[in-house]
């Protein structure tokens, strides 16, 4: 499977995340799965005229591309010209190269939330008119339009995340290489369901604190981050606390909020990222599929049932009380 990877309005962090893959050497893994990198801006030897010649061949069909991976937002500005990003060495805007090659590639994959939805580059006043390949925030559209389908009938595959986990990228590409990725494997936003059908909350090590609404009050506290510190792990689609990052990490394990970076529009939450907005003391963002009245009732009940151990440990940066030891009554 011939893979072409291009970068546009992003930070390169998706590639750097990918390089942290912990399944042995990433390069050998890809070769072993039958994935052949035609060109990647950070990894390939070819550059200058050789690279431009290759890209031109991909664009006019002389070089078949099985998978086009795009990392970074697509920059339509200024004034629709695409001039905020030209592919080095020529006058043509990157968005024109992307449109041309996407029209010929067998599959198109958005690597990261920038190329999926616009992402961080579209935050604030969105100075570059950044969008995703097939979405502009939550709205279908983007650079390629809502009707875009590849030759196999798939929309753009959105490996969303800021950055995505290395294995989300690898597993998606391997599914394509094996010919096993079908439309039913993608969720409503085109994300591979193998990671997007989970919630970040699943596997959170702070779960006992969550159960009792024993909340952290400040950074470095051990308690649940949902009530005060902006955590959206109960709503965000991803398997971060099951798959784990860089060995045994995740945002919540690192002590800070999930900012739902796999979701469209995460860059503009409408409140401070690390503080939970509330109405009448109730967090606005409720856990996925949770009826509000039940959430309020359960929260009140669990708060009153909180063991002293859990309550005290929640606002400390180390364990003040260990779970008690019980002996069997023999």
């Amino acid at each position: 499977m011939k893979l072409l990877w291009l970068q546009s309005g992003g930070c390169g962090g998706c590639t750097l995340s990918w390089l942290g893959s912990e399944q042995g050497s990433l390069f050998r893994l890809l070769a072993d799965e039958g994935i052949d990198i035609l060109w990647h801006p950070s990894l390939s030897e070819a550059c200058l005229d050789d690279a431009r010649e290759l890209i031109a061949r991909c664009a006019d069909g002389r070089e078949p591309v099985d998978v086009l991976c795009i990392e970074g937002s697509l920059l339509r500005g200024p004034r629709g010209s695409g001039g905020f990003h030209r592919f080095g060495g020529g006058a043509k805007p990157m968005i024109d190269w992307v449109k041309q090659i996407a029209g010929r590639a067998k599959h198109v994959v958005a690597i990261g939330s920038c190329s999926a939805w616009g992402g961080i580059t579209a935050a604030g006043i969105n100075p570059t008119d950044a969008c995703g390949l097939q979405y502009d925030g939550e709205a279908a559209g983007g650079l390629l339009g809502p009707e875009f389908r590849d030759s196999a009938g798939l929309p753009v595959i959105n490996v969303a995340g800021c950055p995505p986990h290395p294995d989300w990228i690898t597993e998606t590409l391997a599914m394509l290489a094996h010919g096993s990725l079908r439309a039913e494997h993608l969720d409503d936003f085109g994300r591979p369901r193998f990671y997007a059908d989970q919630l970040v909350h699943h596997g959170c090590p702070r779960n006992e604190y969550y159960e009792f609404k024993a909340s952290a009050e400040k950074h470095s506290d051990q308690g649940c981050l949902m009530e005060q510190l902006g955590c959206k792990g109960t709503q965000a689609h991803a398997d971060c606390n099951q798959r784990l990052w860089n060995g045994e990490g995740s945002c919540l394990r690192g002590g800070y909020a999930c900012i739902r970076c796999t979701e469209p529009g995460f860059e503009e939450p409408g409140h401070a990222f690390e503080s939970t907005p509330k109405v009448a003391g109730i967090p606005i963002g409720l856990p996925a599929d949770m009826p509000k009245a039940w959430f309020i009732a359960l929260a009140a009940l669990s708060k009153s049932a909180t063991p002293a151990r859990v309550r005290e440990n929640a606002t400390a940066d180390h364990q003040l009380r260990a779970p008690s030891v019980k002996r069997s009554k023999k």
Partner: protein
Amino acid sequence: MSTRRIVGPFNRVEGDLEVTLDIDAGRVVAAYVNSPLYRGFEQILQGKLPADALVLVPRICGICSVAQSAAAALALADAAGIVPPPNGRHAANLTLAAENLADHLTHFYLFFMPDFAREEYKSRRWYHGAAERFRATVGSAPNEVLPARARFMQSMGLLAGKWPHTLAVQAGGSTRPLQSSEVFRLHRILREFRGFLERTTFGAPLEEFAALTGRAQLDAWRDQAQEGDLRRFLAIADDLGLWGLGRGTERYMSYGCYALDEGRLFAPGVWHEGRRLALDVGAIAEDTAHSWYAATGRPQHPAEGGTLPVADKEGAYSWCKSPRLGGQVVETGALARQAVAGHPLVRDILADGGGSVAARVVARLLEITLVLPQMEAWLDRIVPGEPWCITAQPADETAGVGLIEAARGSLGHWLTVRRGRIHNYQIIAPTTWNFSPRDAAGQPGALEQALAGLAASADGQLPAAIHHVVRSFDPCMVCTVH
């Protein structure tokens, strides 16, 4: 009559780079460096809550992500008038050091060395070995380095939750309290990384290389054994004359980094003509004469600077601004950092032949041997149970500065807060210094100077030497323009 060539994309530079070369009689007579991508972070940040900068700025750059976080955290701490507790400071140093060392390794093995596998070098006696070892993606070295690097980056899982793009680095310290078994696991990660470096990269104990004091000693060290990729590079460097290639401005700047009880592990300053000078941060100004931004009259200090893109500006050729220190072009990076900090090997190299491709590469690897033992020491000083993070809100009307050293050089954030919102946020990244376009006075940037005079043909393949010079700066183009 010179011929003009526009060449790009230079890849393996982290981002987008294009260079225009004026070539006459087989030589580059003038080079113009262009960053062809603009994203507008300084515009995005305006009007945001100050603390939200910690979500936005790491996403300027996937490879200097923690450095961007650290600069923002310092600026916010400065604005709030707070200092993190000792555990928080050690964690910040460890996190930044982990990124910087991983970046040095990534640069050497994935970005820089693959150029010696080019066909152009087929007749060199070292070619076969170098191509087998360093060729992009298939060489034996990158395939050994990736797993070792991934294991080392597990330190980020423990210290920062993940990499890149953490929120663990806060103005008041770290969000991640470590307990004793996590400290032990970090200790194991550092030990394994040391083992890898000593076996594979240096073929020697780190302290042995760190103790070298001059070029002559370095040559003797190279000849005393066969092991290690650094020795392979040194042999190539001698054969190709890389010690005399890519001389820059010979004026070096470092903000200094890794906060200790007193001062910083690597001191700030300027190194010029064999003397260390104090760094006057007030003398920094950004010129936009040849950049696609609205004219500002005269160059502005970043605390007063602005960013308003103008795509069709006459005479402009880059989205990069031209920062200058007291009107002078300076070079920044590991070579500058170690020259200013006073490492005898680096100072001797500069006294001997000045800055060069080989000098920049050796300084970067030297820094790995200096910083990893420090990481081991910082880890020993962590006291589980002591505080990690303090809380503070910046005032509604305030300002702050965060100056730090990323792997590739000096990174500065200048923040102004009005009515509780970010009024202005200006960033000068390392490669903004190194790869700037000309200023109003016509002074070329550091890379533009380093490229002038190199051999180049007006039509055929560009010599690999040009690639070596460009990549020797370890450019990060996504940071450059942000």
